[in-house]
């Protein structure tokens, strides 16, 4: 009897050693973790702008972990608990095929949510997300039929469709129009296949005409362009009053230079840059040419005194980074959204029972979430068409600075071009 007691005792002692000191125990992690996959962009054509956005998001999540993780109340016990994010990330190089292979590795690693920078990279994995029932957050990504056509939908984006953002700019311009005749409105856009619906009759044209304006057409600009004089002259010859521009920052720069050289008077012709066309570097890169350009900005500026900006600066300093702050904030803001969604899902079902679908449901029902003031609010207005930026503001470049000239304007909902 005593011998068997001894055997049991030593077996217990062995177990204590094994549990506490084995590499397996270390690998499994004693604390609670949720695996999060981040498909970031550091290289490739958009690496310049996107690397700061990627840094912002990654640093925010690392900061949350460094502060002890996400605090939540376990539903069964009511006790306050903490969960860390096991962050797996890779550089997608803004490349769709790379994005797909990264997704497969994240899936194999047990990622319960995947966040992907960019529209084409997110669209490329949206079918897989639906198939595997893994929620995806496309940040710095626009909504499009390619991303949202799969059922059941597990994909969400930071921005609305480009058609909706274009129409929001038109709405704001029309509200500011003082003329006695219907204003003539046109557009210039980078010629990307997924951006083409903007130019179709049911898209922006229908909206402009319904809003009481006159549509003069959209000029498509190649991906790599050194001169846009012909496109600008064509629009001006039609007597255009407002031009809404969509492209990369390179397009924003070339168009600003060409308009300046051609002597376009921005007081007579309003030029409105959509979100992807600019960032805060615009005023450094083309200071005199950018004077008078209006930008649409769903994100706040780095010079605004807001809790989110202060925290982002603190985190960036902790991480030892420097560089463009405006873009950094465009990634940093989504750390708030992911944290809130994970907390909400954990509080609903608890750590042991949480599934990717619970996280999706929490993401798709984020409402009026204060993201440190870095955007109006994180607000999913339609769970079956989940986008996180519900409002934008307009600012004008004046005296070498961005001056905010509007309140938050709600993004238009335009069915055309959504599915």
């Amino acid at each position, binding site marked *: 009897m005593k*011998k068997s007691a001894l055997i049991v005792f030593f077996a217990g002692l062995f177990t204590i*050693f094994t549990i506490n000191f084995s590499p397996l125990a*270390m*690998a499994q992690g*004693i604390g609670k973790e949720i695996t999060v996959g981040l498909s970031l962009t550091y290289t*490739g054509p958009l690496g310049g*702008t996107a690397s700061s956005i990627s840094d912002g998001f990654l640093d925010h999540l690392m900061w949350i*972990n460094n502060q002890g993780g996400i605090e939540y109340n376990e539903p069964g016990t009511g006790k306050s608990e903490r969960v860390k994010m096991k962050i797996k990330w890779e550089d997608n190089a803004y490349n769709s095929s790379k994005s797909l292979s990264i997704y497969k590795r994240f899936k194999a690693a047990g990622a319960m949510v995947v966040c992907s920078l960019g529209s084409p990279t997110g669209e490329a994995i949206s079918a897989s997300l639906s198939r595997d029932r893994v929620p995806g957050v496309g940040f710095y990504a626009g909504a499009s039929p390619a991303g949202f056509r799969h059922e059941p939908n597990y994909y969400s984006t930071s921005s609305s469709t480009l058609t909706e953002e274009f129409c929001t700019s038109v709405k704001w311009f029309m509200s500011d129009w003082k003329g006695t005749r219907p204003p003539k409105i046109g557009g210039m856009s980078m010629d990307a296949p997924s951006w083409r619906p903007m130019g179709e009759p049911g898209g922006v044209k229908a909206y402009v005409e319904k809003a009481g304006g006159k549509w003069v057409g959209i000029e498509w600009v190649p991906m790599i362009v050194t001169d846009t004089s012909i496109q600008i002259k064509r629009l001006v010859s039609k007597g255009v009053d407002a031009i809404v521009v969509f492209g990369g920052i390179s397009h924003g720069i070339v168009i600003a230079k060409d308009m300046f050289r051609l002597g376009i008077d921005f007081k007579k012709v309003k030029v409105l840059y959509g979100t992807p066309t600019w960032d805060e570097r615009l005023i450094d890169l083309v200071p005199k040419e950018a004077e008078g350009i209006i930008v649409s900005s769903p994100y706040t500026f780095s010079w605004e005194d807001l809790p989110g900006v202060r925290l982002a600066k603190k985190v960036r300093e902790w991480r030892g980074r420097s560089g463009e702050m405006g873009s950094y904030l465009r990634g940093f803001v989504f750390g708030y959204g992911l944290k809130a969604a994970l907390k909400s899902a954990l509080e609903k079902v608890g750590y042991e029972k949480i599934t990717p679908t619970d996280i999706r449901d929490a993401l798709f029902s984020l409402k009026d979430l204060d993201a440190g003031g870095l955007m109006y609010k994180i607000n999913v207005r339609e769970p079956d068409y989940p986008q996180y930026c519900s409002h934008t503001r307009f600012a004008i470049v004046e005296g070498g600075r961005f001056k905010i000239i509007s309140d938050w304007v709600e993004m238009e909902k335009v069915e055309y071009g959504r599915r």
Partner: protein
Amino acid sequence: MRSIKGVWRISFLVLAIVLCMQAVGAECKELKPISVELESCNAIYSSKDNVCLVPTFKLSNPNDQLILATIDYSLRFGGQILGSAQMPTIYLPSGGAMDQRDAIVLVYKSWFARLYFEGKSPGEAMKILLPLWKGLDGKEPAKVPEGMWSKIVATTSKIEADGSITLADEDGTERIFFFKTSVQGSKQLN
């Protein structure tokens, strides 16, 4: 009978010591950052379109315990990001050192496009890119005006790496550290 009692006593003593060690350990163990050194960053393949770099990091663990380390890094050359990655998690033995390698493929066209989308004109982009490309052992790219390549002076600055190290010890306690390291230029191996 006496010997069994003796074994019991010794066993309880061992157990008490183990438990005390754990408690004291939890109080005293402060994870020290591991040292990360970019030992080399060589091109193992280069052509007019691509260069494949293999950064090799030497990791040393000054802690007197086995740790789990996850390292991510960005490589920079002449102020430009060459690539960023998170490497697989590894075990580092107490007081030990080991090498961890990765591979980064640079694509000329993609790099050119990145500079363009950052707002550089094609001419400006080429002016920045060609010396860097040559400095990384890249071959003469297509569409470079005749005679220009031979006049390009290769950038010889150091390749810099910075990144973060997430360490976990046997308690599952995690700590995050940051590092910066550099190595002189690339050397063609093939």
